[in-house]
């Protein structure tokens, strides 16, 4: 496969994630869209890692093609941590105002 296919796919998913952030007002959905964005990145990184696996220059420069996959691993780790904090924040807000609409709280502006 050409790497462009992966780039296109990944960017499409990424953009869908962005659009999701833009158009939804439910904090949880927005958060899920962010997760989608992260996954798009993951996919791309893996794709690149497999692309570099074919590249002679990369081999010659003594780097590991698995670096990118390890990066993906770390992204997942971080995402997990973020989810725990993020959901905690959303829950906290829900406790206070009984909604997860991000536009409901609108005291900070201008």
């Amino acid at each position: 496969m050409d790497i462009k296919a992966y780039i296109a796919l990944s960017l499409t998913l990424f953009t869908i994630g962005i659009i999701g952030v833009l158009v939804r007002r439910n904090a949880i959905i927005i958060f899920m869209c962010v997760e989608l964005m992260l996954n798009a990145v993951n996919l791309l990184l893996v794709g690149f890692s497999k692309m570099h696996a074919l590249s002679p220059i990369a081999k010659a420069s003594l780097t590991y093609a698995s670096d990118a996959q390890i990066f993906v691993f770390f992204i997942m780790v971080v995402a997990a941590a973020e989810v725990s904090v993020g959901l905690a924040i959303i829950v906290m807000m829900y406790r206070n105002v009984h909604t997860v609409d991000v536009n409901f709280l609108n005291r900070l502006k201008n």
Partner: protein
Amino acid sequence: MNITTLVFILLSVLAVGSAIMMITSKSPVNSVLWLIVVFFTISGHYILLNAQFLAIVNIIVYAGAIMVLFLFVVMLMNLNKETEPVKNYRLQLIGIVAGGALLLLIISAIMKIDAQQLVQMKVGDEGLIKSLGMNLFKNYVLPFEISSVLFLSAIIGAVVIGKKD
């Protein structure tokens, strides 16, 4: 059009379609479920790329743990109903146009590249546990250790934020 391409296209269509469903679903629970579908298709891609470890981790961690957590929260809050009564369609339209424009912009730039760079499919041992493990615990031991700080703060965060006082 060999079988790999076919699978790739199938998975991609599925992924994009589910992603679109995810953001358009009215019910949060449906969204969660659609997202899980996306994760599964992405894992499929990983397998196609012979990144088996990540494929498994993706399913276990993301689809299994994280999304379940989401599901729990959604259920807990009893949000399984229409939660966005007022919609600003114009803003949404602008959002979609802007996102689409961004996508088009980048893709058109990327597609200008003439050289074809192939991706190694179905073979290669980079994605296997052994090589990943060797790399992770030899070269990446520092970030690995440092990540613990991240988790510690996440734990504290969950305590500080989540605890009722």
